[in-house]
């Protein structure tokens, strides 16, 4: 443990991060400690094996997809600002901000409903082409069910899911179709983690 005092000096660009993500100073400090803790070799950035060391994550059927979501395409490490930006998606939605920002110039916060949906969409859409193909859907289903169902059952489940959501009948699910099919789901609550004050 040592006597390293955890204050804001360690955190690069703290003010900017706070504004961008909406985390408070106290949250950032605590998240930095967690980042530091996961960073076993004190490299200042996280690699794949640091994430894989979290055992509860290893038993999650889509654990590896979640881990990959932290890494920007082409990069093999995650620095603290990227770490926090991804986690910002999971902050509870701020109810006092209007959905689309006051003026068009203000970017949507990371934890808006749309951005939460985008995050979930990317868990399906691994090749980031903006559409969930039948094969991508099958891969997710395989990850979540693996040995528990037969290949035919998997295919029929995927078939039903595409039929329901695919409105323009191009055999893939675009982001808008995804959004529409989840209209009634309480995303704000289900994709949020309550960070303690």
């Amino acid at each position: 443990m040592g006597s390293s005092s955890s204050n804001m000096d360690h955190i690069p660009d703290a003010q900017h991060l706070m504004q961008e993500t909406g985390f408070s100073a106290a949250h950032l400090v605590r998240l930095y400690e967690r980042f530091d803790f996961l960073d076993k070799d004190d490299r200042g950035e996280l690699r794949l094996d640091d994430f894989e060391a979290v055992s509860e994550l290893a038993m999650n059927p889509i654990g590896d997809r979640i881990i990959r979501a932290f890494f920007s395409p082409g990069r093999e490490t995650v620095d603290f600002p990227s770490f926090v930006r991804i986690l910002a998606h999971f902050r509870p939605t701020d109810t006092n901000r209007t959905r689309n920002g006051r003026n068009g110039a203000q970017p949507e916060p990371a934890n808006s409903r749309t951005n939460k949906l985008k995050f979930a969409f990317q868990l399906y859409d691994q090749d980031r082409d903006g559409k969930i193909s039948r094969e991508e859907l099958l891969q997710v289903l395989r990850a979540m069910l693996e040995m528990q169902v037969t290949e035919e059952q998997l295919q029929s489940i995927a078939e039903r899911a595409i039929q329901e959501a695919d409105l323009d009948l191009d055999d893939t699910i675009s982001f808008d179709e995804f959004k529409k099919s989840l209209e009634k789901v309480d995303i704000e609550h289900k994709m949020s983690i309550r960070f303690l004050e």
Partner: protein
Amino acid sequence: MSDLDILCLGISITVWFTLLFVFIIMPAVLGVSFGIRSFYMRTLLKIFEWATLRMELGAKEKNQELYKPYTNGIIAKEPPSSLQQEIQELRGSANSLRSEPEFEMADIFYFCRRGVESIVDDEVTKRFSAQELKSWNLLTRSNYNFRHISLRLTVLWGLGILIRYGVLLPLRVTLAVTGICLLLVLTTLVAFLPNAESYLSEKVHLMCYRICVRALTAIITYHNRENKPKNGGICVANHTTPIDVIILANDGCYSLVGQVHGGLMGMVQRAMVKSSSHIWFERSEVKDRHLVAKRLGDHVADKTKQPILVFPEGTCINNTSVMMFKKGSFEIGCTVYPVAIKYDPRFGDAFWNSSKFGMVSYLLRMMSSWAIVCSVWYLPPMNREEGEDAVQFANRVKAAIAAQGGLVDLIWDGGLKRAKVKDVFKEEQQKLYSKVLVGDSEDQMEDKRSEDGTPEGDESSKDPAEGQ
């Protein structure tokens, strides 16, 4: 140096050693106590209270944060509900009219959130770092907010360092060396006397352990000594540090189980074996489970031999929880004597974080903290019941130890901190999820076939044991 100086030096050394002998070694040999250590402990507590008070006052004046916020975690975990419940809630908001459950795109949110939650805060990795203290015990190791709050406190802290490293550490090292030397010498001597062997060897062992206990300034309270382990049984305890062995062996004689080491440890091991039976394995034999079980079984069957001491967690945990017990010792079929050990963190953190500290630096840390205060509870003996397998028995014993010591009972395997999680846990999650999708529709098909009004018992209400 003049003659006078040499004389003074000689006298002070003699006085020092006499005091040492009279107050520490003789009581250890005879097994009596002057009560010096409990007096020491009470004084220390009073000083700590005073120091903490000063820090709080000082922090208030300067308007600073004294205690680390969120000592209990960073996120609010919802009360654990089963996978079934959560997914149904997810869906309930989407399609309440649907009769046939099937895959929903929204299902992924459940796994996604659980995954991110565990990245931010998870149960297992918390157990492998030292416990965070809420008050300060004048060791900077355990308080992160140590700043210059008042001159008096800093002086006190400096004094503490002087005392700990200048007085206590050399004293303790002397004692430890004395203890080990005595052990080596006396056990060899006892081995030459065939007659009074077991009685004498017991006395010798106890004496040496008592010296070691004083070398660490360990203040131990034993509870329920009527349940002490007897011959022909296995003593099972939670593991926090290698010092656990000394703590327990201070009060009774046990046969230890372990790997053969080289160097000093090896010498100690060989010496111990000369006068009482311990079970040391070569490195290669450790993997052979049958061999291990056989040797343990043979030892236990011999009623003249001492109880075996085993730490089924297999690794050191930070004394806030008890992790999965390896079933090996529970398969042997003899009486198990559970023991719970709880360290008082106010005086020094006893946990050995083997990935951070080597053995030597750990021992130095231990010998330079104020004291090691712990409580040992001997629990009533347990036997494996009819129809209970080794794993269930192990879990029952684990629960009893956790309950007594006030520790959290976890299902996780301590070995996880180094190895990857077994696929078994992932399969469980997949099984549960598939029941939501496919299991229910199977029920419905059976309903249609039997054309019975009463629905079959819902599989999801069986409440399967769920790994978190």
